[in-house]
């Protein structure tokens, strides 16, 4: 295992070394110490690396990850694992806004809470949140699955496309075109497998499912009221 202290090495130098592994992988296991909330730590990885960050990370930690497994032993700022393509990112603490934004694939696990816009514009990623998520989560979610073991804030799934949302606790309100759907056997099976893959001990039967009503997929004037509400959530 290679250990790098960000008190001694710049983020640029660290990311340069991690990126170099994509061309010729000489070190698979990395431990990053003294991250102290720095931004863009371990972003743009494109190799099957195992990176552990011993502390708190700032914005865009593990952004656009491909193949790598990144664990943060602390909290993270805005946009953790944004646009992740594959691999696995595990946050042992809480996450700020836009966790997993626009991510196409892979698994993002957050042990604590995630703030607003968790899974915004998600495009295929699986996100499992041990705690609660803030408002506008899964906004314009296109594909993938967002699992919330706690509660969801206002306007969950606003303008959602085909992402699938599972929430165990309460939902403050649903956004435009997002509706509760029946939790059928296949969904319990699917969710159970996802919880197991994420390493989260929870019973899939305790969750409720939400998704798109598909009423706004093509404009019809009769639906105009659906997006003429009180404008909360922003």
């Amino acid at each position, binding site marked *: 295992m290679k250990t790098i202290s960000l008190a001694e090495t710049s*983020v*640029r130098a660290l*990311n*340069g070394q991690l*990126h170099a592994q994509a061309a010729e992988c000489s070190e698979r296991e990395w431990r990053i110490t003294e991250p102290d909330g720095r*931004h*863009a730590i371990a*972003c*743009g990885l*494109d190799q099957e690396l195992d990176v552990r960050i011993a502390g708190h990370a*700032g*914005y*865009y930690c593990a*952004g*656009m990850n*491909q193949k790598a497994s990144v664990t943060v032993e602390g909290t993270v700022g*805005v*946009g953790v694992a*944004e*646009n992740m*393509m594959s691999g696995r990112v595990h946050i042992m603490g809480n996450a700020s*806004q*836009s966790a997993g*934004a*626009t991510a*196409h694939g892979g698994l993002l696990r957050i042990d604590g809470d995630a703030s607003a*816009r968790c899974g*915004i*514009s998600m*495009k*295929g990623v699986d996100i499992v949140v041990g705690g609660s998520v803030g408002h506008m989560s899964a*906004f*314009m979610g*296109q*594909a993938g699955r967002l699992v919330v073991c706690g509660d969801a804030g206002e306007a969950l799934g606003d*303008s959602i*496309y*085909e992402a699938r949302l599972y929430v165990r606790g309460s939902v403050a309100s649903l956004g435009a075109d997002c509706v509760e759907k029946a939790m059928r056997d296949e969904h319990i099976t699917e969710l159970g497998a996802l919880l197991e893959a994420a390493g989260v001990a929870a019973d899939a039967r305790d969750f409720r499912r939400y998704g798109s009503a598909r009423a706004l*997929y*093509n*404009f019809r*004037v009769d639906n105009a009221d659906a997006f003429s509400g009180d404008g909360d959530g922003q």
Partner: protein
Amino acid sequence: MDNSQDAWTLRESHSFDRHTIHEIQRAATTGIYDIRGFGAKRALPHFDDLLFLGASMSRYPLEGYREKCATDVVLGDRFAEAPLHLDIPVTIAGMSFGALSAQAKEALGRGASAVGTCTTTGDGGMTDEERGHSRQLIYQYLPSRYGMNPDHLRAADAIEVVLGQGAKPGGGGMLMGQKISDRIAQMRTLPMGIDQRSACRHPDWTGPDDLAIKIEELREITDWKKPIAIKIGASRTYYDVKLAVKAGADFVVLDGMQGGTAATQEVFIEHVGIPILAAIPQAVQALQEMDMHRKVQLVVSGGIRSGADVAKAMALGADAVSIGTAALIALGCNDPRRDADYRRIGSAAGFYDDYHAGQDPAGISTQDPELGARLDPELGGRRLANFLRVLTMEAQTIARACGKSHIRNLEPEDLVALSIEASAMARVPLAGTEWIPGRG
């Protein structure tokens, strides 16, 4: 009406002209605002309202065709290890695969590469055809992040963070369901046949301070090699340019309200944003006040049609211009030779703006394979290259006449305005006077 009465004796209302009457009737029938492509169609203050002061006694002209007048430009050398080196100061604006056919994207790449300039992707991601035929390619990083892929960030020659578009500042994109092919749907991770709305705001940052950190992430992912531009729709230009510079942009792309679009609400196209003529001086002022003029390059777009427009934009302080609609026209959009085809779908050559409908007879703004096949990418590329060469030669001719050995040496002092409005916006004197409205 009495059949014996001549139509010319009738008086059309200025407030309720035929277009307005038609639009009210159309809205009442359909219950939806008009959506179309192209750009603003009404008269706007534009470069036509400016004139060059060719050299006579007080300035010394250069000989046309014979004396050298350089045209090269470097974009993005503020932080990037590998800035763009272009042979001409005219680039191809971002236009998406989805809005345009694969043949059109290929033709744009061929034409631009032939004359040493770059093309730009659009909403929906990068295609292999586009990368393969564009020697230099700018990858747009858009709010929707449709098809966003870090491999494409690394494969691009520059990255353009798009905050707005001149035809619709504050508005997102629209790709109507009828244009969603299997490939488009797959690229954008959306079902077939639905209207694809592109978000109007970026999902993972909410202000200029966040944007600075976002740009830092993009630089980290690309190992600080690629120039990063910020594209804004001209509206609050002065402040937006200052914030773009503060956020770390290598260069700024400023799109005026005459800019084209593939599909958006007409009310946006005609009523939101400001003309590029008014926006450039605001942008230049912002850059100058930060001592960043020419250090953070300014690329302007929105209604560039001729070498005179190129020269005027650069004289006002731009480092380069970008063309969209004009490039499509060069490929064959609205070609009179296809007038019968246009009429069959309820339009006419010169008027066609239903880019969103996917029925483009020229094979440019369509995903229909049969229509797309009408556009020969090689021929289209040659036509675009010709047009780009003409734009450049025209701008050079004007620059020489103003005594400049490089196009970028054109300056506001070379210009006068024909109208008080243009004089005030462009901040150059009214022709025959030393008066600039607002400056005493």
